[in-house]
C-alpha cells in the first residue's frame, strides 16, 4: 500500500518538472563533438589518406556493412582502392573506430541520414574522406611503422635505429 502511494507520488511529481522531450527537428538536441554517429575517413597531418586498408574495421563490423580492397602506392604504402560502407545496415556501434589502428575512421555527430532511395545510403570513399585530421591532429601511422615510404627511409621512423650493415664486423 505504502509503496503504491509512493509510486503515485513519484509519478505525479514529474508533472511539475521541465519536459525532456524536444520538438525534433524544429528543435535540435545538443550532441557532444565525440558523439558516435556516422563515420568519416580522415587524413594524416601530411594530407595523405590515413586508411591503410588493413581490413580490421570490416572484420569487426557486427553487421558486415564495410567492404574495401587494398591497393599499393608506388612507394609501397597501402591505401584502399575502394572503401564502401552500407549505412542502411550500419548500427553506429563504433566498433570500426575502435578497431582502426591508424585513427582513420572517426565517428561524427552526424546521424541524420534519411534518404528516399536506399541506394543513396551506400557511401564510397569519396563520400567519407575528409580534408582533415579529426580528433588526432598529430598521428601519422607511417611515421611509427617500420616500412620504408616516400617520405622516410628505413630507420627513420619513430624510435628506430639506422639500418644494420650486415657486412660490418663490429658488435
Amino acid at each position, binding site marked *: 500500500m505504502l509503496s503504491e502511494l509512493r509510486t503515485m507520488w513519484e509519478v505525479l511529481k514529474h508533472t511539475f518538472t521541465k519536459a525532456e522531450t524536444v520538438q525534433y527537428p524544429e528543435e535540435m538536441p545538443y550532441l557532444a563533438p565525440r558523439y558516435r554517429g556516422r563515420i568519416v575517413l580522415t587524413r594524416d597531418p601530411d*594530407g595523405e589518406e590515413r586508411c*591503410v586498408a*588493413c581490413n580490421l574495421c570490416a*572484420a569487426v563490423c557486427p553487421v558486415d556493412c564495410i567492404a574495401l580492397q587494398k591497393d599499393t602506392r608506388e612507394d609501397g604504402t597501402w591505401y584502399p582502392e575502394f572503401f564502401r560502407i552500407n549505412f542502411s545496415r550500419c548500427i553506429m556501434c563504433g566498433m570500426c573506430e575502435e578497431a582502426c589502428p591508424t585513427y582513420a575512421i572517426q565517428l561524427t555527430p552526424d546521424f541524420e541520414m534519411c534518404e528516399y532511395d*536506399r541506394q543513396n545510403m551506400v557511401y564510397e570513399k569519396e563520400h567519407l574522406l575528409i580534408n582533415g585530421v579529426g580528433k588526432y591532429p598529430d598521428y601519422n601511422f607511417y611515421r611509427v611503422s617500420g616500412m620504408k615510404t*616516400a617520405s622516410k627511409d*628505413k630507420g627513420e621512423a619513430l624510435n628506430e635505429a639506422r639500418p*644494420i650493415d650486415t657486412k*660490418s664486423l663490429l658488435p
Partner: protein
Amino acid sequence: MPMINVDGQEIEVKKGENILEACLNAGLDLPYFCWHPSMGSIGSCRQCALVQYQNEEDTRGRIVMGCMTPASDGARFSLKAENATQFREAVVESLMLNHPHDCPVCAEGGECHLQDMTVMVGHRDRRYTGKKNTYRNQYLGPLIHHEMNRCIACYRCERYYRDYAGGKDLGAQASHDHLYFGRHEEGILESEFSGNLVEVCPTGVFTDKPFLKQYSRKWDLQSAPSICQGCAVGCNIAPGERYGKVKRVHNRYNHDVNGYFICDRGRFGSGYLNSDLRLDYAGIKNPDGSFFAVHQQQALNTAADWMAGKKVAAIGSPRASLEANYLLRELVGSKNFAPGFSDQEADLMDSIANILQTSMSINPSVKQIETADAILILGEDVTNTAPRVALALRQSVRNKAFELAEQMGLPPWQDAAIRNLAQDQRSPMTIVSAMNTRLDDVASACVSLAPDDIAAFGHAVAAALVGEITNNPQADAAAQMLKMAKNPLIVSGSSMAHQGVINSAAAVADALSQTTSMLSFCVPECNSLGLAMMVADGASSHLKALVKRAAKIDALIVLENDLYRRGDKALIDQLLAGGAKVITLDMYENGTLDQSDLVMAAASYAESQGTLVSSEGRAQRFYPVQSPASERLPSWEWLLRLAKATEHKKLSKIENFDQIVTACAKSSPLFTKLVDVAPLNSFRDRGSKIPRQTHRYSGRTAMNSGVSVHEPQQAQDHESPLSFSMEGLNRDQPASLTPFVWAPGWNSNQSLQKFQSEVDGPLKGGSSGVRLISSSQTGADISSQITQISLKPHQWHLVPMEQVHGSDELSAHTEEISELAGRGFIAIGKKVAEKLAVTEGDGLLVKQDDIECSLEVRILSRVAKNCIGYSAGYAEARGLVAGRLVSLQVDKTWQRSGPEMIASDKAAFQPVVGDGGTRNV
C-alpha cells in the same frame, strides 16, 4: 606405449617422439616457432619451453625445450608451471623488441604465427624503450616480397630453402642481433619452390608478391579444396577468392601427395584465371572472322542443329576433367573421339598407362618416393616436369643420413645433429639424361646420353640386374646400387618423348622383381593419365586418323584443347578448315578457338568441379572456389546440356554431376573406384554443407551494395557438399572436403596440426583421393627394341627441355610466370657454342623440316654428344618436334635482351598524393 605426465595428465606418446610433438598430439597448446614437422627440431627459438621434473618429489624442476627433449616413459613435465609460462612470455617479449609496428600493412596479418604465439603467451606491452633495429629489404623476384624488419630469427626460411629444397641463394648473414636472411645480392630467387617461404616463415618477412597486389585478409577469402592443374603430380591446393577474383593459392595438406609444400608454378601460376583474355560469353563466328556473343541456349541450339543426324567427331583434352572427357566421348561415340594427345604423346601415354597396370613395381605416391634409398632417373629433369616429386627426391637422398642416425640412436627429428653426422653422405641417385638437370647437385652419378642411348642404358641396367654381362660399367654400377637398396625407385617419364626410355624404365623395374621396388612416371598434364586410362580400351581414334577423315566430318567438338600445341600447323589447319563446323569449349583465347565456328565459354578449374587422375594413378576431386562468372559454364555442364539438346539417348537421363561420376565409373573396370573419390552431393556434416567462407568473412552486406543495395541471395552450389556461405562447420569432415584450416587461437596455417590425426600424419578425415592403379603380378610386356637415328654432319638430336615456368600452357599466361620464363631458348654444350661462335644470350635459327625458329642461346655444362635442348611448350619454339633432327645457324638479326631490371630499395620514389575529398563534415 610410453606414457608421460604433463601437469598431472597422463599422455600416451609414440616411441621416438619429442615432447612438443607429444603435447600437440594431446591437443595441448605449446607455442613454437622454429620447429616444423617436416624439418625437425633445432631448438633455436627457445619458445616451446616447459618444466621437466626428476620425479614426483621434485617440485622445482628445470626448464627444457619441448622440441629437443625425447618423450621417455614416465617423464614428468609441466606446461603451466609459472617459471615455464614466464619464460615463454619473456622469449616473445625479446622477439618483439625489434618487431616493427606494421601489422596493419603486413600481408601476414591475420594468419601470422607470431601474432598467435604472442597472444598465446600473453605478452602485451613492450617495456624496453630503446630503438628498434631496422634492415634494408631485397628485391627477390616477382614472386616473393621481402620485409626483413619483421624477422624473428627462427631460421626456418634458411632451413627450408637450403636444407629442405636444396636452394643455394638464400641464407643467414651477419650475427647476433644483426642476423639477416636474404641473398648475397638482390635478384630473383633461383629455387622452383621459393613460394613455400611464404608459408614457412612464421611472420611477414617473406610474403606472396602477386597476392600483395590484390590483397585480402585470410578471413575474407572464400576457399575450396582443389587440385593443382599445373602438372600431373596432383598436389592439393586451396585457392582463395574475393570480389570474383582468385587472389592466391595456398598449399592444402595431403599426407600422401604434397604434404606441406607445393611448387611455384602451382602457387603462382593461377594468375591467368583473372585475365581479360578469359571468355565470358558463348559466341558464333561472323563471316568477317569476329565472334558475336550469344546466349547459352542459343549456342546449344546452334550446336544441336549442326550435330543433328550428321557425322560428329570430338577431341578431348588431358587438361579437362575426367567427367567432361567422358561425356564428350559418350556424346559422339568412342570411334569418333580422339583423346586430344599429340600423336607422339598418345603412344607414350598409352604405354605408360599399360606399364603401370602390368608392372610388378609399386607406382609410388610422393610420400612413398621419400622412402626410396636408391634412385635411378632415366631421361627426366624431374624438377621441371614434376616439381613436387623432385622435392621428394631431395628428401629421399637423405635416407642414408637417417640410417646413420638410427645406428647412433638419434631420433629423426634431431635435424642439426643428423646433418652434422651425415655431412655429404647421401643415398645413391643416378641421373641418366641428355642435359643438366636441377637434381644434379644431389646425384651420386650423372650420365649424359642421347635419348636412344638412355633407353639402351636402361636395358643394360635391366640386363645387369638379371646377371647378364653388359660391358657397361656405369650400368653395372647403377644395377648394383638398385640391388643393394631396400626401396629402389626408378623415375622416368614422357618429357623425352621417347618410347624406348619409358620401356627401359619398366624393364629395370621388373628386373628388380622386388615387391618394394617403385616405378614412377612423370606425365605431361594434370589429367593425361586419366585420359589415357579412358581410351585404354583402344576403341577411340587418334588425332592423325581424324585429320585423314577431316573431309567426311560434319561437325567437330574440341574440348579445352589448343590443337596447335599438339601437332603440325598444316595438319591442324587441314582438320579445322576441312569444312566441318568446329565447336570449341575453352576458357582462354587460343589458335584453335580462333578457327572455330562456335565457342562456348568454359569455366576454369576454380569455377567448376571434376576429377583428375594424377601420375600416381590417384583420382582426386577439385571443387569450385566461386560460381562461374558471366555466362561461363563448366565443360561437363555444357556437354550435358548439349546431350539434352541433341536428345542423346543415354546421356539425357543424367541429371547431375554425381550421376556422371557413377556412369563414368561403370564405363571401364579401371574406373570402378571413381565413386569413392569424394563424398556425394548429399553429404552433410551435422546437418550442414561445409562452408567455403571463414566464420569471420566480412563485408557481406557491402560487397555488392555498390551495384545495388538490395542484397542478392547467396550463390548456391547444387552439385557439391560445399556451400558459398559461412554457415556450417569446417572440422573433422572427409579430407577431400577441407577448404581451409583454422582453429581457435591458431589463425596461421600452423592450425593444420589441429586437423591432423597426429603430428605429420594424415588428416583426421582420412586420406584424400583414391588410387585407381595397383601393381600387378604379371610384369610389363615391353619391347626392348630401339631404333637408332643416324645423324648427318651439322645435325643434332632435338631434346625437349620442360621448364617449370613457361612450358605449361595456362600458367604461362600469368604475368609473373611469363616474366620468369624468359624467351624461348636453345640449349647447347660449350663445344657447339665454340664451333658456332655464339655466347649465352645470342640468337640461333633452328631449322627442322620446314619449321624455322629463332631462339636464345643457353650454354649448359653437361650435354650429351650430338644433342641440343629446346624450351618445350614455349610459343617461340612452337612446331619443333622432339626426336627429329635439326640444323642450327646463327641468327644475324637477333636482338639481345637488355640487362635485368631490378626494383631496388634505393630507387627514387615519386610521392603519390591521395584523392581529394569531396564531401566534408
